[in-house]
């Protein structure tokens, strides 16, 4: 399959693709350390814009909101999603409706879920704020946690559950001592994925945040900064946000792929 000239061609394709993927990101990265903050000229290395960032109370507030939303919705989604995954995989019969409901949050266009939730909350006269963002994020987060855990369960040797019963354990003991420990890496990976999705999520948060300034999340803040006047500190913010989600994801990948017993 790989004679010399075709290998060279493949390497060319790869280099071009990686250049396309990484040049824009790298430019942001470089700019965030450019003293002038402008793409027109390099005026020297500086962490000035990162300093500006920390001094900006709007951004710090938004970042805190994002953390609250991400942490709470991740915890809720991890609990609900893991139990859901176990429940679904234990069942021998798979229902089409059930599969659709579980799959839907991952494929419904964000904008549709966003307006649906907005209509729902406002028709119930639900006061909107951080809590409604958390509720909404839990919807898609639990679907993703469930998907990750189910993927692990597919290669799960169910006979160890029977073995546990055979050795005298009751179902709750089996859940606690056998099923959950074996699933832990996948559960953590799912939780980190959910966390990443939540800190990056913009549209649904934007629609379900209500009108108060105190429920603005970081992506919402970034959106308005991009839209209404670009300031150089956004480069620094972009780099920080990007780094955070990439780190969370890298850990998640590692947990999910590295040394999983029984795989």
């Amino acid at each position, binding site marked *: *399959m*790989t004679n010399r000239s*075709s*290998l060279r061609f*493949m390497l060319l*394709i*790869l280099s071009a*693709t*990686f250049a*396309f*993927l*990484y*040049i*824009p*990101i790298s*430019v*942001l990265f470089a*700019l965030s350390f450019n003293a002038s903050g402008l*793409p*027109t000229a390099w005026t020297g290395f500086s962490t000035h814009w990162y300093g500006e960032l920390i001094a900006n109370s709007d951004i710090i507030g938004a970042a805190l909101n994002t953390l609250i939303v991400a942490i709470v919705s991740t915890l809720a989604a991890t609990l*609900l999603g893991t*139990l*859901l995954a176990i*429940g679904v995989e*234990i*069942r021998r019969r798979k229902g089409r409706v*059930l599969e659709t*409901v*579980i799959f*839907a*949050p991952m*494929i*419904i*266009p964000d*904008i*549709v879920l966003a*307006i*649906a*939730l907005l*209509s*729902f909350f406002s*028709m119930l006269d639900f006061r909107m704020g951080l809590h409604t963002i958390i509720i909404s994020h*839990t919807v898609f987060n*639990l679907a993703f946690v*469930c998907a990750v855990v189910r993927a692990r369960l597919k290669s799960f040797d169910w006979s160890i559950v029977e073995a546990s019963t055979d050795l005298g354990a009751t179902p709750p003991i089996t859940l606690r001592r056998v099923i959950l420990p074996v699933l832990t890496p996948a559960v953590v990976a799912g939780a980190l994925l959910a966390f*990443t999705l939540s*800190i*990056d999520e*913009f549209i649904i948060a934007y629609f379900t945040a209500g009108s108060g300034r105190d429920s603005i999340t970081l*992506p919402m803040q*970034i*959106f308005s900064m*991009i*839209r209404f006047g670009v300031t150089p500190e956004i*480069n620094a913010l*972009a780099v920080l946000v*990007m780094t955070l*989600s*990439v780190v969370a*994801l890298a850990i998640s990948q590692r947990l999910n792929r590295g040394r999983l017993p029984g795989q």
Partner: protein
Amino acid sequence: MTDRKPVYLMTPALAWLTAFMVVPCLLILALAFFRRGIYGGIVYEFTLSNIALVFDPLYARIFLKSAGIAGLAATIAVVIGYAAAYAIASMPRKRQPILLFFAVLPFWSNYLVRTYAWIVLLNREGLIVSLARAVGFDGDLPQMLYTETAVVIGLVYNYLPFVILACYAPLSRLNPEIHEASRDLGASEWTTFRRVTLPMTVPGIATGFVFVFVLSIGNFVTPALLGGGQFQMIGNLIYDQFLTANDWPFGAALSMFLIAIMMGLLTLQTFASEKASGQQRAEVSDD
């Protein structure tokens, strides 16, 4: 395990999904058939006028335009993504996971940030213009930001990693002996690709295309940021109905159409993968 246990494990999550996804979506479905009040708001009176309005030439044109842009973005993304996935799959086995990891990594960074990066590049005082000036180009440069092209670039850029992932999956599962068998039977490299590799990897291509298309047609961030509000796509139209025009029933009707398009495409995609996997199964049972 008794059959009762799975139910109580699933109940909390299913209750959550029902309350905060199924019911709101049904609500939107119902909303599409109510009348809009004169000062906004909803009058609970059955009507088909919102559905009819979707087919009004003014809005139908926006639908077609969105579909056109989404289709273009999806096509470009699939061509680049398939080539990249094919290249990764032809690298030594040990290197493939790391290459794939770096191909997908950008996908997990913030969508807004990735889109913003293109503003920096395409801006009138942006990097590309600065570079052109730096190498001594003094002529008029065409407007790059706030054009359709910019929107398509943004969509391709954002969703390319997923297409690579989707195309890589079936490519990496291909048995290299099938490729060798085709060569052994006298087919050229190109014929082998066209008659063997490509048909067997259709599911990945279909998944990638549908994914990019669906996410693009309903997108409103990219048109808003890179299109600069120069033109509307369905996503922006829905956004406007809810947040500025205050015509919720019409916004709901538009959403229903978006969902309908998406479901139609997903059905096609399922069909494509089932057909292709059927072929593969037949090949397995033949040997």
